[in-house]
């Protein structure tokens, strides 16, 4: 920590000489990773996992702490055709303070322009932008005595990070993994997970190839994992699967024991009242209703809004509120102090607002 403090002081002193730039702006000319101004990483290698999935190994630059919790995701920004595109992916490596790299595992989605690029077109050496790990779908410490992982498709990635962590610490509790995949070939990490199950007698693996065997019926859980009610459960996969699981656990009054990871954003807030948004630098204004985010409204008004993941994760879209109130759609929290930094992709106006852009 002392070293970090010294570094911060040195940077601040250096900024006196480099103003209005940061010292990092010059250092990163020598090595693109020597900047903590924006988190960056270099692609070390891309390891194919299945035909359409690959593990991308990234060496992060300054400002990165290898302290993510197993199960968390990171934002990654990749330049394609001159333009940075952001997505979030689960970190599949276990956290290691002595680590030098992190890995994400990505499946190319048919409509997923960036995931295809990450799996197929990313050259080692490419510099990407990173957002710090986030997410509450994590392994508690210490882990509960009995766990159930209900996984579909690429939903394995955060769970893999948890399993690898338990394996590395050699503290594998009673874990049941139910892993659905369309076919055997498309099952990411299939060899590794089988090896883990062989190594740890307390790890039970159920594999399901849905193209052949059909989808998992939750009613069958009583047969497959008779003690599922006693287990703390982590579920990750396609949205319909998660909806069904959520309902099933609710019906059993076991919602407290269920952890869900959704890859698409779900808003729980009430929305806002809407209002006139003013963009200070250009004096552009636009009316926005309570369901239109500040980001969408700004884009509609023709303002060059910064944006990233568009799901409240990466903070690329954050702007300063000059006046007015905005509401966060995820939790209903309101921001009304001038100079509040607000994430435009998940906030809506409550009455007239002015933003510094």
């Amino acid at each position, binding site marked *: 920590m002392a070293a970090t403090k010294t570094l911060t002081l040195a940077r601040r002193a250096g900024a*006196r*000489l*480099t*103003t*209005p*730039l940061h010292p990092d*702006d*010059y250092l990163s*000319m020598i090595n693109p990773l020597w900047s903590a*101004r*924006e988190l960056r990483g270099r692609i070390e290698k891309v390891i194919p996992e299945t035909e359409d999935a690959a593990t991308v190994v990234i060496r992060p630059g300054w400002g990165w702490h290898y302290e993510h919790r197993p199960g968390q995701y990171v934002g990654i*920004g990749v*330049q394609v*055709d*001159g*333009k*940075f*595109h*952001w997505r979030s992916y689960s970190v599949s490596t276990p956290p290691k303070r002595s680590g030098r790299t992190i890995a994400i595992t990505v499946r190319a989605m048919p409509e997923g322009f960036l995931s295809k690029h990450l799996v197929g077109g990313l050259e080692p050496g490419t510099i990407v*932008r990173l957002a710090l790990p986030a997410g509450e779908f994590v392994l508690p410490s210490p882990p509960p005595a009995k766990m159930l992982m209900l996984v579909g498709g690429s939903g394995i990635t955060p769970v893999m990070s948890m399993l690898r962590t338990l394996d590395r610490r050699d503290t594998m509790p009673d874990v049941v993994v139910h892993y659905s995949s369309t076919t055997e070939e498309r099952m990411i990490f299939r060899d590794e997970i089988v090896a883990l199950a062989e190594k740890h007698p307390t790890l039970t693996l159920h594999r399901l190839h849905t193209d052949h065997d059909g989808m998992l019926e939750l009613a069958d859980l009583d047969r497959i994992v008779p003690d599922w009610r006693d287990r703390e459960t982590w579920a990750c996969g396609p949205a319909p699967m998660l909806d069904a699981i959520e309902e099933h656990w609710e019906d059993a009054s076991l919602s407290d024991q269920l952890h869900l990871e959704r890859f698409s954003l779900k808003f729980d807030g009430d929305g806002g009242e809407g209002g006139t948004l003013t963009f*200070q*630098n*250009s*004096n*552009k*204004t*636009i009316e926005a209703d309570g369901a239109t985010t500040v980001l969408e409204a700004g884009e*509609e*008004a*023709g*303002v*060059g809004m*910064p*944006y*990233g993941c568009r799901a409240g994760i990466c903070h*690329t879209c954050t*702007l300063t509120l000059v006046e007015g109130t905005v509401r966060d759609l995820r939790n209903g929290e309101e921001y009304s102090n001038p100079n509040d930094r607000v994430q435009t992709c998940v906030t809506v106006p409550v009455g007239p607002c002015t933003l*510094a*852009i």
Partner: protein
Amino acid sequence: MAISDVKEYTHLTAEEVEQLGRELDAIRREVEESRGDDDAAYINRLIKIQRSLAVAGRVTLFASRFPPAWAAGAAMLGVAKILENMEIGHNVMHGQWDWMNDPEIHSSNWEWDTAQPAEQWKHSHNYIHHQFTNVLGFDNDIGYGILRMAREQKWHPVYLGQPVYNALLATLFQWGVALHDLDLEAIRKREKDPKVLAKQLRQIRRKISRQIGKDYVFFPLLTGLAGPGNIVPTMTANATANLMRNLWSYMIIFCGHFPDGALHFTEEELEDETRAEWYLRQMLGSANFEGGRLLHVMSGSLGYQIEHHLFPDLPSNRYPQISVRVRELAAKYDIPYTTGPLHRQYGQALRTIMKLSLPNRFTSSDQPEPPTPPVDRRRRTDAERPTRMVETGGWSSRAAASTA
């Protein structure tokens, strides 16, 4: 001559003006859709060159007690500052590179190496000047509130000193620009919101102290470590670099709207102005200059002032190709396209500055006179300006809906 109706002046029918607008919109769309890796590489390369040059200049000044090192250091730093202000800072803050979605090269958080805080510049330049281009009383860039630049502006004996004010403005250009958004006239008349004023002054004080600290305190002291004899020469070298940048940017900027042929407008033109008429006003009010690629890069692509005013937020490296198309349109619609060599364009602007220091009756004009009576050059406050729909080339949904 100030124009109160551009359609009238150009003898184009309303339909022809709208057609011109559609053709210009098509150019914008084509460029927007074709932005890609090469454009991103251009700005990244330029930033790299500029920063390397700045570092090389600063390092050389560690030997600034030797005159050749002093001269080389000052020159490199001066060129770096010019590039930083013109082709990089000016264009980034116009939002020309926002499409890359790169947070480090984005108009919302770029700060430049000059005295004016970026936020204030984005208001006074991006909004006021680019919206109300050359409209008397509305565009504060006409003479920067110091010089009389149009025959329609009322003469006052104070303008006899105009040649001196002009020389001072050129020398101290960055400081003049720093005060630009304060609107001294509004302050004098006590029309300025004291809260806004206090905030702006705070921003300016902070920016200026950092700028002065860097060039005249911290960096000279640092070179003093290599020999105390470096301290004063480093200060003078930095001052020289700033002066180079001031004189150059002043000259380039005065070539944008003041050569003969660039027209002024009256506020009547603003009433119900359509997007196409706005385009036309930009074309008639701006002037280009000619030169090689290097000259254009060094002048922030403002040799393509006409294209820049039509499309302020398209990447500057595309202006050469856009200008070919715009010239064709000017010829097709028989609209003036003012351009010439740099020395001639600046010479004309300088002549206007000298001439207009005198009352109109002592000077000649090749234009019919007076088409409109001299107007009060009082500046309008934001509240007095009509709501504008175009800015940095964009067009609000209100206008889009009405033309759709």
